[in-house]
């Protein structure tokens, strides 16, 4: 199971990459493994304003429906257009090709609530 060092993580198993005031968001390797085969992804429209901690999308495996929560507040400036047709990218490449949305950060202060890779790995090991 991978926990890339450059990313931040949430307790809901999203990852965030912060670059130049923009957060790229997806779900973690742990999350995709727990879900199993991802067969459907529902994302917000570009321009939607997200609030940290609130659901912004849905990931469905064959068996189950799971909400995806916004790790930070801000406006959606881009979504991964590949996911509706190839949702399995969430399984095969959770940290790269399986990214979900890019959010223009509204408030940098929230980043303090996110975990670094070591803390998240520890969190996941406690959950198992």
């Amino acid at each position: 199971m991978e926990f890339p060092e450059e990313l931040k993580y949430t307790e809901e198993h999203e990852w965030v990459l912060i670059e130049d005031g923009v957060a790229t968001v997806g779900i973690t390797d742990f999350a995709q493994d727990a879900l199993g085969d991802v067969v459907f992804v529902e994302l917000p429209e570009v321009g939607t304003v997200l609030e940290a901690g609130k659901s912004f999308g849905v990931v469905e495996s064959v068996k189950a429906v799971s909400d995806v929560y916004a790790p930070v507040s801000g406006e959606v400036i881009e979504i991964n257009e590949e996911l509706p047709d190839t949702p399995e990218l969430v399984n095969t490449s959770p940290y790269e090709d399986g990214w979900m949305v890019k959010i223009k950060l509204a408030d940098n202060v929230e980043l303090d609530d996110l975990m670094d890779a070591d803390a998240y790995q520890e969190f996941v090991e406690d959950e198992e």
Partner: protein
Amino acid sequence: MLKKTPLNAIHKQAGARMVDFGGWEMPVQYRGVIEEHLAVRNAAGLFDVSHMGEIKVDGPGALAFIQELTTNDASSLENGQVQYSALCYPHGGVVDDLTLYRFDEEHYLFCVNAANTDKDFAWMEEVLADGDFHGVALHNVSDDFAQLALQGPLAETILARLTDTAPVGIGYYHFYEGLVAGVPTIISRTGYTGEDGFELYFAPDAAENLWNALMEAGADDGLVPVGLGARDTLRLEMKYALYGHELSTEISPLEAGLGWITKLDKPSFVGREALLKQKEAGVSRRLIGFAMTEPGIPRADYPVFAEGRQVGVVTSGTMSPSLRVGIGLALVEQGFAAIGTRLQIGIRTRRVGAKVEKTPFVKKG
């Protein structure tokens, strides 16, 4: 405390994800639901279904009792034949759906849904006590059996390697008693997948040996272990009912499309009067199969809309691994059950297009 089948350790070693299913710790998937599903459609899969319940009915009064207890006509069974049937309450709701095995005129075996075993057995005892039956012995023998399902187009080839009496001449819904890898086994040509295959009943202490022998015998044919996840998607593609979804105390067999196992011309059985009335009045809702015409996956309990109002509810839904589209079963008002009828499924905040389809969704040669 979850109950465990004799293969619990084997599943965990094989990397299965285990879940609570009706009080049993069962494998929901090993490598992945889609891969396991397609293996059963294209080659073969092995399922541990030891959680299923078994109830024996013996004695000179067995047939008369079973005729009163079940909706189908058990008098038509020959020795070595299996019948799909149901137990109903007097109001016509379903206690359980089950399979009935006839060994001879005084020896029968029911295979029932795991979570319903105790309820079914109590119900059978009640019907027995309330009626004027003589010479009927009823035993819950669930602990005496482990059960494996070997399913898929290569199931017969694989099984034949381990049996002295090849299963070649055994017809669908027939069974015989023989040895599989040296283990005394009830070999039944039945299943819950829509594929050719077998359900094998045998003593629990032989479970690990038999599982390993089958996995080895089928290794070169692509035999894989299959969990409950794919068991559900396979049965859904065939429109096979699952108790608690398409059948319940609130859903009659006529509504669920099980008129073919509801023999109202039998002189008497529990639920007959209510079902006869329902048939004469016409059922107000019917179980249909539908496929999404727009992106989305239907799930149990989602509302079904047509003509701008709710006309039904989804009972089961999934992404079909064979068709790669969302499919589901739903109970809808009679007027919206015709094949080709346009429906909308309420998925979260949206209403998503769907269409009533012919079932089974997947046609097998």
